[in-house]
């Protein structure tokens, strides 16, 4: 059982306050959707949790299974069981997808046991093949440089492939649905849902659209506005947003849309 507790989190980017007091608790097996207009701070929350060096927490706490998450380096957070599926994953020229995935596995094994020799090549090949098949990824992708020249859909699938490889306890999906056609969305969303059930993951799904939530079926829906969670509710909240947009939220909280 894992718990990620975000308490009164404030954060800045380049001295600009973006998060202005976030409180949210995510437990194993729970799926939370985070919605809200552009610029409300959703991606900043994702980056802060993953430990991006350009994002600075200025107040509050994040406790992950009793550990102070904000004190940990990005790689430690990942090995502790936190995962972020990036909206715009970086490309890593010269490093193949296969080599990269092996490194993610071996880094975990080495952290457990410094003498570990790493996963054997046949074992790794079996694992990779199985996970790629689950997400409908062409095996040839394994030999390509990570994200280099990948289409939007390929990048998102590969993010989920990474999630399937490292098997996190808590996963954050940052607009994984953006830029996907309907078929790709289904594969990615169903794959994530299956993983969540298999691993009993806690999930935070950042999105603008109801579409992905049809597959992922959130237990809770939160609405973020101007760096705060202003509304929380059940799945019906997402449907309401789909129908009425964000204007009623802005009106209710007196926030003017940034142009």
């Amino acid at each position, binding site marked *: 059982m894992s718990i990620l507790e975000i308490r009164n989190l404030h954060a800045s980017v380049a001295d600009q306050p973006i998060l202005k007091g976030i409180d949210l608790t995510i437990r194993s097996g729970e799926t939370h959707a985070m919605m809200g207009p552009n610029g409300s701070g959703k991606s900043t929350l994702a980056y802060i949790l993953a430990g991006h060096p350009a994002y600075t927490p200025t107040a509050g706490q994040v406790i992950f299974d009793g550990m102070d998450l904000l004190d940990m380096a990005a*790689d430690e957070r990942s090995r502790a069981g936190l995962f972020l599926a990036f909206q715009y*994953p970086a490309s890593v020229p010269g490093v193949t997808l296969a080599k990269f995935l092996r*490194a993610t596995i071996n*880094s975990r094994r080495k952290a457990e046991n410094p003498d570990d020799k790493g996963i054997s090549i046949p074992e790794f090949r079996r694992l990779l093949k199985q996970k790629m098949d689950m997400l409908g990824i062409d095996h040839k992708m394994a030999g390509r440089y990570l994200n280099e020249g990948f289409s939007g859909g390929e990048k998102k699938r590969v993010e989920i492939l990474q999630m399937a490889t490292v098997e996190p306890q808590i996963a954050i999906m940052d607009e994984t649905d953006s830029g996907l056609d309907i078929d790709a969305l289904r594969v990615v969303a169903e794959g994530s849902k299956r993983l969540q059930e298999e691993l009993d993951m806690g999930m935070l799904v950042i999105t603008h659209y109801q579409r992905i939530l049809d597959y992922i079926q959130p237990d809770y829906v939160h609405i973020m506005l101007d760096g705060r969670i202003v509304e929380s509710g059940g799945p019906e909240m997402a449907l309401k947003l789909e129908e009425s947009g964000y204007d009623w939220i802005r009106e209710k909280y007196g926030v003017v849309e940034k142009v």
Partner: protein
Amino acid sequence: MSNYVITQLQITQLPNYIIMNTFTKEAVKELSASLNEPEWMLEFRLRAFVVYENTPMPTTKDEAWRRTNLRFMPWDEFGPSINGDAAVDAEVPSFLGEQLTEDEVGGSLLQIDGVTKQYELSDELREQGVIFCDMSTAVTEYPDLIQKYFMTEGVRPDEGKFAALHAAFWRGGTFLYVPRNVQANAPLHTVLWSVNGKTFTHTLVVLEEGSEAVFMDEYASADNDKSGLHNGAVELLVQDNASLIYAGLQDFGTNVWQLNHERGRVGRYGRLDWVTSMMGTRLTKAFQTLDLDGPGGWGRMSGIFFTNGRQHLDLDTQQNHNAPDTTSDLLYKGALREKSRTVWQGMIKALPGSQRIDGFQANRNLMLDKTARADSIPGLEIEADDVICTHASAIGQLDPEEIFYLMSRGIPRETAVEMSVQGFFDPLMRRIPFEGVRNRIFDRIVEKIY
């Protein structure tokens, strides 16, 4: 032996900071006598010595030397390698003996300070007529071939001060000769280990028409307090329809100063796949020239270098398209740390009438520290009109987003940086067909990152 032209130059007063009084005519004679050389080689050396004496020391006013100042070289610590001072009993690190190719080597040569320590050549290669031996043996046993090819077509003694110095004082190195239409059935591997810091090795490869060979040529030494000089030459003569894969792997200690001349010549439909790895030395100035002499000739130059500390590496490459329908492809990549400096100056030349040529050159540098400096200077001199010639150069840093991305998957920072640097070199590594060579270079890259 064909005579090269001795340019009659004014004997220039050497600047007084240069004390090279150990490189004398008497030393030339002593060296040649100690090697029991035939008269013609002594004469060759003495003629080269005259060129050496008559050629002024390059200064930063010379275009090719603008970015490398020889003033700081410890000239008084250098000297010729004459019998008696070679450390033939020294230990050689065991990794150097390791096989670099998947196929078992057919010939191997280990020299210390230019003196042969171990030598093997398979019966199969002997039966094929392949000659693979140290250069001094070649002078004695194959005088006709040496008089025909030694410093006549490849590197010539009158190319510069240090080509002449080398011609006068060369010692050790490898002669590889593959006769017409013979495909050497196994790779060849030379290790040149230096202890006394006086290395003047010469590599001469002659591939006759339609022949093929693979040759790994390694140069290395341990770090040492005493300054050393490596003044080498590499000649790769690939005749019509012949094909050579040559990897020159340099890993000298940072006490070594290197002044090299290297040239590959490729005949009609010949192929030269030329890999250079440079990891060591305090200073290297190397001239590497590819001459595509026959129509249909192909040459690929792949360079990998990594400098740190106060290393200074200055590479001068030329791709000369001397015939129509020739193709050259150069990719040199370097990583730099600390206060090291690299210079790559590349030139593609096409003679008038060299139509339908395809020349490419690219140099990319990865700056791992802000204190390092890389100069990248591509150039084209094209006198034909139906050509494709492209060049590219780039200087960049590690991408923090890339490092963060790798770390966000649980990969520790050090490993992430290693992967990113290895990734930088990967497109070059893919050009090297031997896992052992790739691993050797990878290991050194990883060692040099921190």
